[in-house]
């Protein structure tokens, strides 16, 4: 044990008494002598705190700036204008879907660049157009057969390399061998640009397409639908169950060991790593109950278990804030306990419960780790049409795209993150709005 007087030397300046002549020096002088040093320490400490806050804010700004700067360009996409001649001899009336749409694209390109000869060069020329162009033509013909025999000017998506070049993400000055686009291709692209056949337009595909291996055809609609189905299941299960548990624990539960156990459980579940819920889902819902893999239903069940503690805790706080006088008044005029709770306490606590639920939903929307466990990482092209069909969700789509090697997927990943963050912001804003509008201070 240190002697009490000596352990706090730098804080309490009294100790210096010994070193000076005791009779001539007053205590106040000793204190004053050290005062400047102490004030400097005070300032230093304050600046340290401010620096901590500023650096946290700096991280936040860096995060958003880096994602926004990488992602904004994905909202436009390079398109190439081709004059397509839908010649009659290509189409077989009985089998419109089977026509050689690729051939149409190739022919049209050929007519733009008649000087291109040789297999190698032709392949490089065709490589400028996305493989999605033929599907686009197919769709056009299937929806309107009258265009067969005519020539139409069609904007088709360019290949992702062309798109990246147009957005300045491929360095023209790099040596040819290190570039995805060769010199001849650059020449053609500049030619197309000179003819105003190459333009950046709003990237509709990104919002209407499912997943794809081709960045220029990849969209977030499938993942968004999957997220929606999953969240619907989560909301339908977790809100009623969470509110019911909160009401029971706050209003009806006796104080005994069982209830303590439940409370400890809820508090602990709120802090269990989310991936463990994924293991639970895999072992119980998939292996034991045999529910289908990758289904939004299972995802919703897992996320329900994960968000329940959040909703229960928020709802309990909200019920606690309803003053006892309300309950006493209701009981006093002859309402039963149940009537008191459902007719008087719950309506007053509802805004708080809804706020907690929205926050829980926002967390569920951003969650991906447990969903990896139950197979919601599949490569799914078509948007899911129901609760049992294979689906993926927005955050998992982000994870999948972040793993893709193509340069163009980086900007699409960032754009998907921007969309996800936008959803989250709307939800949180709704929660803040609810709270400020309906919360009552008693």
């Amino acid at each position, binding site marked *: 044990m240190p002697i009490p007087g000596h352990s*706090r030397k730098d*804080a309490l300046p009294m100790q210096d008494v010994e070193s000076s002549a005791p009779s001539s020096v007053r205590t106040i002088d000793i204190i004053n002598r050290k005062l400047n040093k102490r004030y400097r*320490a005070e300032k230093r*400490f*304050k600046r340290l*705190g*401010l620096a*901590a*806050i500023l650096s*946290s804010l700096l*991280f*936040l700004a*860096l*995060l958003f700036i*880096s*994602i926004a700067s*990488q992602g904004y360009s994905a909202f436009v996409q390079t398109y190439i204008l081709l004059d397509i001649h839908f010649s009659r001899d290509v189409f077989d009336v009985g089998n419109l879907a089977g026509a050689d749409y690729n051939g149409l694209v190739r022919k049209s390109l050929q007519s733009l660049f008649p000087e291109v000869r040789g297999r190698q060069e032709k392949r490089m020329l065709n490589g400028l157009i996305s493989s999605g162009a033929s599907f686009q033509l197919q769709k056009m013909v299937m929806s309107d057969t009258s265009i067969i025999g005519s020539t139409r000017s069609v904007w088709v998506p360019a290949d992702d390399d062309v798109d990246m070049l147009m957005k300045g993400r491929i360095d023209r000055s790099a040596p040819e061998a290190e570039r995805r686009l060769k010199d001849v291709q650059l020449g053609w692209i500049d030619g197309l640009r000179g003819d105003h056949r190459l333009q950046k337009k709003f990237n509709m595909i990104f919002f209407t397409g499912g997943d794809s291996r081709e960045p220029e055809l990849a969209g977030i609609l499938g993942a968004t639908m999957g997220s929606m189905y999953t969240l619907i299941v989560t909301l339908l299960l977790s809100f*009623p*169950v969470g509110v*019911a*548990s909160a009401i*029971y624990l706050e209003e*009806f539960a006796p104080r005994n060991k069982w209830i303590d*156990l*439940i409370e400890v*459980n809820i508090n*602990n*579940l709120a*802090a*269990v*790593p*989310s*991936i*463990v*819920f994924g*293991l*639970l889902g*895999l*072992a*119980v819902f998939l292996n034991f109950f*045999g529910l289908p893999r990758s289904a939004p239903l299972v995802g919703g069940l897992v996320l329900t*278990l994960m968000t*329940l503690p959040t909703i229960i805790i928020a709802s309990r706080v909200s019920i606690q804030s309803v003053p006892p006088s309300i309950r006493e008044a209701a009981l006093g005029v002859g309402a*039963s306990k149940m009537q008191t709770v459902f007719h008087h306490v719950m309506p007053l606590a509802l805004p708080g419960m809804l706020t907690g639920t929205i926050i829980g939903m926002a967390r569920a929307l*951003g969650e*991906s*780790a447990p969903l*990896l*466990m139950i197979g919601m*990482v599949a490569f799914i092209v078509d948007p899911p049409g129901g609760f049992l069909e294979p689906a993926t969700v927005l*955050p998992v789509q982000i*994870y999948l795209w*972040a*793993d893709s090697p193509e340069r163009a997927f980086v900007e699409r*990943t*960032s754009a998907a*993150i921007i969309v996800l*963050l936008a959803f*989250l912001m709307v939800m*949180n804003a709704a929660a803040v709005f609810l709270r400020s509008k309906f919360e009552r201070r008693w």
Partner: protein
Amino acid sequence: MHFPLLLIVIFVFSQAAYWLGYRRAFSAAGEKGSVHLHSRPQYYGVLTFLWCVIPPLFILGAWSVFSEPVLTGLALKTMPEYTGRLSPDEISLLKSDLRNIVSGRFIPPGADAALLEAADHYKDMRGIGRQGLAALALASMLAGTIIVLLRIRPGMRARNHVEKMISIALITCSTIAIFTTVGIILSVLFESVLFFRQVPITEFLFGLKWSPQMAIRADQVAASGSFGAVPVFAGTVMISAIAMLVAAPLGLMSAIYLSDYADRKFRTAVKPLLEILAGVPTVVYGFFAALTVAPVLRQFGESLGLSVSSESALAAGLVMGIMIIPFVMSISDDVINAVPQSLRDGSYALGATKSETIKMVIVPAALPGIVGGMLLAVSRAIGETMIVVMAAGLSANLTANPLQAVTTVTVQIVTLLVGDQEFDSPKTLAAFALGLLLFAVTLVLNIMALYIVRKYREQYE
């Protein structure tokens, strides 16, 4: 009858049942209410409604849970010459083939006549079962409604009955938390026991080599994977330590500044901003770590002449630390605000400056709470998944160098379980063993932290 149609019928009829019960209460009360009803007439309606809905829904629920395993078992019994000499794995394969044929998804290439026959048998029985189910559900619905209607008397305590049923529902809902915990424990424990039967627990806990890749052929080199999890633990500890080195000082200092120095305006402006950091999905942090922070660190390291792995522990730990800052901050803030004002006033009265008060009085007084909060933060760092999956490596290096790639428990769980799984290989089961460990460690940390924080709060209340 089909499931959705059945549900619609039940729904429509339940509305009718409510109305019938409601009317019946009035007629039981007699003309102009000559006899007093015990409860308000709505309660008689609700009671009829509940007894109309609950029995058929219960039956349908039981069917959808139990029909498949029962029917599969019955169908497989039709081919005894098969199932008699098959191992459990082959039977489970057979079952999934059967399920695929029945659902019409596809017919597995190896399917033979006996299996197809069993599938037909399955479909037949399912057809019969479904008809019986519909009949049973509708009958129970009618029976429930009629019984309640017949028993409605003026003296019947309908409200008490309804309230009893509601309170049973409430109790059931609140026990889900217990069932979830039990479910987690059982599911990880069960698979882990299977794992420890194949790999000794001492090897798992103390082995120094982790390479769970199982050989496809038995005669391959390194035919069995090795499951020494120490490198995985070490990686987890290192990344969490880096994260805490970032989050603990920044979070604590931010909380101190906000609670003791900042004016109201600054506080209301900055606090929500910092809480945004907590709301950002972890997958976004993972992307940020892998595509922005890691390359920057790598370039910076190269300019100093250091070789930094592109999946360095530093990048993952740094970003994870950023993620945890608001968590540490809000807990520290709570804890610091719980220190009674009288302690501060006493310190100021002795002539201490603000920073001296904080360092000598407030932080020591709040220490248990702060420690508890840090434990919760550590538990969160250990369990964090997406950042490390995206930014940390897969290779289990046993190293103390934060510039190298390390792997963590959560990364291994994800890589072992994503993709095709067989539930008998140690590779898959190892993920559950890691999960058990993760759950146990975070459980201990959480309970300890919650206990400390609660004790601390009580001390000043």
